């Protein structure tokens, strides 16, 4: 099953949406629990499996999950778990072992349903580029359909009850992966963070919780789920993203005005290294890919697709690389294989 996944990138990395060079992907998720069961952390093994069975039945009856992929976490190797986390299909929380935990993934990987993670249900919808409306509609639509067969834990005055108080209420969270090289290169990141600190969003690195920013890719997420309706969450988050993108566009203009040669040099050097290096760490790869990406954004590079860069980043991650080459590899060997993979991929353009 996982074999098919190794050969292709998910649709959300296809660079088809709006501003794909700056907005890698859009995502919406809702958290739900089932009425009458303790939350997963307190639930015993047998009941956890019962919950899984019930949710699986409800999900698989929906057309959205036709021919879905189902992985029970306890049956996966460590490598496979990390592979799914690198694809954003499961969270770092699900990496920890535990029976009755599973993930159900739609064929095109635009929907993922984590079962018995922090909550019984964590449903996520993904789309390439800036497309918050699509993921918003999709996730709530599927949530409603599931809610017709399953009974959610819902009480006045709090709404949907979740394990963590930060999700109580709508259980809804919107997020985007943004490529903000202009802001970083022009040293305006602090200014952006200062602005974002005033609105209700969080800013994190590429892989969400607990990781550092790499390749100038930031995950910005909405935070509030009480005191706001779903629609208001969508509207205010859309504004935050627009403001951030404007900030990025202005930063790029400033760069082009003040240090055009240095910027172009950086872009071309990065491309040259990616095309000819013999060893590449993930961190380096992410940095050079970012510069090339910016090159596409400001019209200095034409013959490379954003989609190719998305795939490069995805498959440069440790678990993806090992799955791609079909063997376990240490860091040294990975750096070598990564460089050869990147080189081949760029040559094929």
């Amino acid at each position, binding site marked *: 099953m996982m074999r098919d996944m190794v050969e292709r990138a998910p649709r959300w990395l296809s660079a088809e949406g709006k501003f794909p060079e700056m907005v890698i992907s859009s995502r919406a998720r809702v958290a739900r629990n089932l009425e009458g069961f303790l939350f997963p952390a307190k639930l015993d093994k047998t009941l956890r499996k019962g919950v899984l069975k019930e949710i699986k039945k409800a999900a698989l009856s929906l057309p959205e999950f036709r021919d879905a992929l189902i992985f029970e976490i306890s049956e996966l190797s460590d490598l496979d778990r990390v592979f799914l986390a690198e694809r954003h299909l499961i969270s770092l929380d699900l990496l920890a072992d535990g029976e009755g935990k599973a993930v159900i993934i739609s064929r095109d990987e635009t929907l993922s349903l984590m079962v018995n993670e922090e909550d019984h249900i964590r449903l996520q919808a993904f789309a390439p580029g800036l497309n918050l409306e699509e993921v918003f509609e999709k996730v709530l639509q599927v949530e409603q359909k599931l809610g*017709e067969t399953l009974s959610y834990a819902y009480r006045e*005055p709090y709404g949907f009850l979740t394990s963590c108080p930060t999700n109580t209420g709508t259980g809804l969270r919107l997020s985007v992966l943004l490529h903000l090289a202009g802001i970083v290169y022009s040293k305006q990141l602090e200014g952006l963070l200062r602005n974002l600190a005033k609105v209700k969003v969080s800013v994190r690195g590429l892989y969400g919780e607990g990781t550092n920013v790499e390749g100038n890719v930031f995950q910005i997420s909405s935070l509030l789920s009480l005191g706001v309706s779903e629609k208001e969450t969508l509207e205010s988050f859309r504004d935050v993203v627009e403001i951030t993108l404007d900030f990025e566009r202005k930063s790029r203009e400033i760069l082009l005005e003040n240090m055009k040669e240095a910027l172009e040099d950086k872009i071309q050097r990065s491309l040259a290294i990616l095309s000819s290096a013999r060893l590449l760490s993930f961190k380096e790869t992410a940095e050079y890919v970012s510069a090339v990406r910016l090159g596409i954004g400001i019209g200095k590079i034409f013959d490379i697709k954003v989609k190719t860069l998305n795939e490069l980043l995805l498959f440069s991650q440790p678990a993806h690389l090992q799955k791609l080459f079909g063997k376990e590899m240490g860091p040294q060997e990975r750096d070598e294989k990564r460089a050869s993979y990147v080189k081949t991929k760029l040559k094929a353009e």
Partner: protein
Amino acid sequence: MLCENCKIREAKITFVEVKDGKKRVLHLCPICAEKLSLGLPEKGAPADELPEERAERESPEERTQELACPGCGMTFSEFAKKGRFGCAECYFAFGEKVKEIFEEIHGSALYRGRRYSTDRKVSELLRREKELEEALEKAVREENFEEAARIRDELQKLRESEQ
């Protein structure tokens, strides 16, 4: 590693904070990270006091620390430490303290999302009602009063049918 803010829950998030032009990297638990992202006061200020610290400061009758949830057995101090509810009953077992926590995190303890009922028919009606309410708000905002009147009528009919 423990959260550098509350020093109680496990740190899971690397948080970059910018204050007076200086950058600071903090390792935080999700709850403190969200609080800081929201620009809420840091440790030390009463608004950010941990529930158990507050319980210590307050008079004994106000203490909720020893309360245990009848649903899952979780005590309030266990909840304060982990930052996670054990079950739906916890929300009501810990009383007003839960509301205060929501006020801190979300700036509100009131649900404003779509209403839901496990009864499918009721659920459908509630959903329709919410949609109409939103459409009405929009019509009023856009000063489209004809449309607003039409929606108001429809809403009224819907509410009558509910009773």
